[in-house]
């Protein structure tokens, strides 16, 4: 028996749409050239459908033109600090204060500038901009005479290159950093124009308090009807389910919780249909988990020394009842090193590496919403129990019916 052609085509369409939606969620800014070209083409092909979906369910605007696709993501949860701007090199170090400031000044200069710019010229303009009295008052000073300052600017430029705001025409940044040369770029005004995702231009925000500023940047228009209020709830909840690893009920207010309780099935089904994410609904919250293990920037579990350490510490924390101090975690890493160290990278086995290993593991777990950091130590959050090991006696008794599963999970020979 053969499948009717229409069904095959439908299946293809759904698969393409899913791929395009996932690409956008992973990279809200896609360029028509370079490594994202295939994904861009998919997004462009299904632009109208995607635009309608995102507008209805999240209120995010999707703009697609011949060169770029941009999903104007606005997070539902403003206080998330686990998504820093990162250096566009292997180290992917989070941006520092100076780099963030430099980045914005550079963008301000590019915004007013010509279609092309040389790095040296950009640097001059940034220095001029940095003389702004507010910046000086905040203790920012740029002269770009020192090498580390030029390194900061180079990092900013590399980020802009990776975003596609700049396109290198000649020269390179290293030459500029070492003071031996300069680099020339084309400015992609369309990409630059779509870079800010805020509802309001920051220059029109008058609030002085930090939280107010963030809130005003994303503020929607007044919600003066039930329908608008429900739409806002739907959008906000869908945003969180699409963006965040775990949505805990205790983070929601009453209205949100009431809406979610009633509409949970619809909300998650709609997301599953578009993205293929599967809802893991538990008493404490919802996690949209990914069977393809692809729609994320932080993987869990992951191979490699750091992923391994994170996994093993997650298991340790999952077994703990309350906050665990950093010292305790470091002790645990030292034990683990004795047991598994043979598989770890050399630098991880060196004495004194525990602190750094614990730090990166906790950062990862916190980014995934699996632990919270408190002054008392690292507190496991409910979803961390996903990574509990079969050693727990309770588990063995619970899963007796499932045959050899617990034995299989008892991996480490003791």
């Amino acid at each position: 028996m053969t499948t009717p052609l229409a069904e095959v085509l439908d299946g293809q369409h759904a698969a393409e749409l899913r791929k395009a939606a996932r690409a956008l969620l992973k990279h809200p800014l896609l360029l028509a050239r370079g490594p994202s070209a295939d994904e861009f083409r998919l997004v462009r092909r299904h632009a109208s459908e995607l635009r309608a979906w995102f507008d209805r369910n999240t209120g995010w605007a999707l703009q697609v033109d011949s060169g770029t696709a941009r999903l104007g993501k606005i997070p539902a949860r403003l206080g998330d600090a686990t998504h820093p701007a990162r250096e566009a090199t292997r180290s992917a170090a989070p941006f520092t204060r100076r780099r963030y400031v430099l980045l914005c000044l550079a963008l301000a200069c590019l915004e007013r500038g010509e279609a092309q710019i040389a790095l040296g010229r950009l640097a001059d303009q940034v220095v001029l901009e940095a003389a702004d009295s507010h910046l000086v008052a905040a203790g920012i000073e740029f002269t770009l005479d020192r090498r580390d300052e030029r390194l900061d600017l180079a990092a900013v430029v590399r980020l802009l290159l990776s975003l596609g705001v700049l396109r290198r025409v000649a020269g390179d940044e290293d030459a500029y950093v070492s003071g031996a040369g300069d680099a020339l770029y084309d400015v992609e005004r369309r990409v630059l124009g779509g870079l800010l995702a805020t509802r309001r231009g920051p220059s029109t925000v008058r609030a002085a308090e930090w939280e107010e500023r963030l809130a005003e940047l994303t503020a929607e228009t007044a919600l003066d009807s039930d329908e608008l209020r429900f739409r806002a709830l739907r959008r906000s909840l869908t945003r969180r389910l699409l963006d965040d690893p775990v949505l805990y009920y205790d983070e929601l207010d009453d209205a949100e919780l009431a809406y979610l309780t009633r509409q949970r099935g619809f909300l998650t089904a709609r997301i599953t249909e578009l993205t293929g994410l599967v809802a893991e609904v538990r008493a404490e919250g919802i996690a949209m988990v990914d069977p393809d293990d692809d729609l994320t920037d932080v993987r869990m579990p992951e191979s490699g020394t750091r992923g391994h350490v994170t996994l093993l510490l997650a298991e340790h924390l999952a077994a703990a009842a309350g906050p665990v101090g950093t010292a305790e975690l470091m002790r645990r890493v030292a034990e683990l090193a004795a047991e598994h160290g043979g598989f770890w990278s050399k630098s991880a086995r060196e004495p004194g590496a525990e602190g750094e290993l614990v730090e990166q593991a906790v950062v990862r777990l916190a980014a995934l919403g699996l632990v919270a950091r408190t002054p008392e130590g690292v507190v496991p959050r409910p979803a961390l129990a996903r990574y509990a090991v079969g050693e727990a006696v309770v588990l063995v008794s619970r899963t007796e019916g499932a045959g050899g599963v617990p034995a299989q999970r008892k991996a480490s020979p003791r």
Partner: protein
Amino acid sequence: MDETPPKPASPAEGSGSYGPFAHLTAPNVLVYRSVMRAFLVAKERFAVHLRPEDVQAALPVGIRPVELDGVVKALDSLVGWGNLRADPDTGRVTAVEDFYRKRFIYQLTREGEAAEQALSAYDEALGRRGALQAVALHDIVTQLRALLVLAAEDEPDPAKTHLALDGLVSRFAALADNARAFMGSLQRTIDLHDVGEEVFLAYKDQLIQYLERFIQDLITLGARIARLITELEDGGRIQPLLRAAAAREAADATPQEAAYAEQAAAERWAERWTGLAAWFLSRDGRESQSRLLRGRALGAIPQLLAVVRALNERRAGRSDRSADFRTLARWFAEAPDDGARHQLWRVAFGLYPARHLSVDAETLAARSARPEAASTPWADAEPLRISPQLRRTGSYERRGKPRKVEDRQEARRLLAETAAKQAAETAAARARLAATGSTRLSGLGELDPVSFRLFLRLLGDALATWRPGTTHTTAASSDGSMEIRLSAVPDGSTAEIRTPHGTFRGPDHAIEIVDLTAGAEWSDGR
């Protein structure tokens, strides 16, 4: 009643002083200039004298003084600077207070009029956007035609010649001046220097239309002008005309100058002609002005469009984006800690990726078999199945030493060489076979091993299409490089082909071998 008119400051001191320009630096310059304009307008209507009431009525609303006294004061100041003259007003009055007021009528002085002329020339020059004159191009064509007609005569009329040349030169000078001004104003517009957004947008459409029309004229008429100029220069037809014009000009010279006046005039005319020719003809490796102008005008259109786009982008932003970024820079600098900065980055730029926990197929399958209730806490639910291998070692695959990568450079080079050699041999053999042309198998005689191998393969390809009863076949070799045409011969004779390794025998056939690659190269070369 005081009948003394206000005294001009120093009209007698005359030409050396620029009193009539003094009002330009006075505080109320706009009022003064409007007053003067009112007088000029009146003069065009042949009205000589104006009363203060007339002036007040003529002033534009924005700067008109409410009280008549204000106007009188301005008028008297202008009289003081020498721009106006005041004469006692002897007209009838109808109110007592008017009678008691000192009354004058005013009129422009010569100095004032000259100053106004100078100022309007100044305004015009500054305000001139520079227009490209398509009409001038037409005039130039007409004058050149007239010159051609004159040149055809044996004795060109000096007066007509001079007039035609003079007309040509003046039209041309105007065209060149305007072109220069046009280029300048175009650049100002494109760079948005001193030009407001509204002005630009209003100007844009006109400008683009205008450019299009002018470019068209320049292309069609420019070519015609160039042809006329070449025609006039051919056989030196223009020189007598230039000389005639110079002679006529020199006729007016004084006796002292007469000796070299004609020479100087001739040189001047020759230079003018060269300038004109250089404008329309590219020669001596220099591009003609008209071509440059055309290039600039053509290039201006995309530049204008870029400006339009930039303006639109600026408008599309809900606020000035440059200011937005500066504000953000300040916020980043003022942020309490790194965490706050990361939050701001995420909210303002929205470039963060989605982040999700993963689930493996095995766990999913188990879940669909035994679904958990939505009210199960995570701690009581089935945990994720994690590969024991991953748990123990931190990697999914067994680690082993990676195999050393072999250096195959040398082998690759050898292969390439062999391939090249074989290709060359085959090509040579192909050429040899094809060179035999239309012949019989028995006529092939002796073949070297490579040619023979090629021949056998070809024969095989041909015979593969051979069916019982076939007398003629055409087949292409499997690689498409050759074609063989084979036909049976009725005499039933046997053919022999000798090779160094032995002799090949079979029934004779008529054979033609064509080298298809040679044909392809040949046709490509055409």
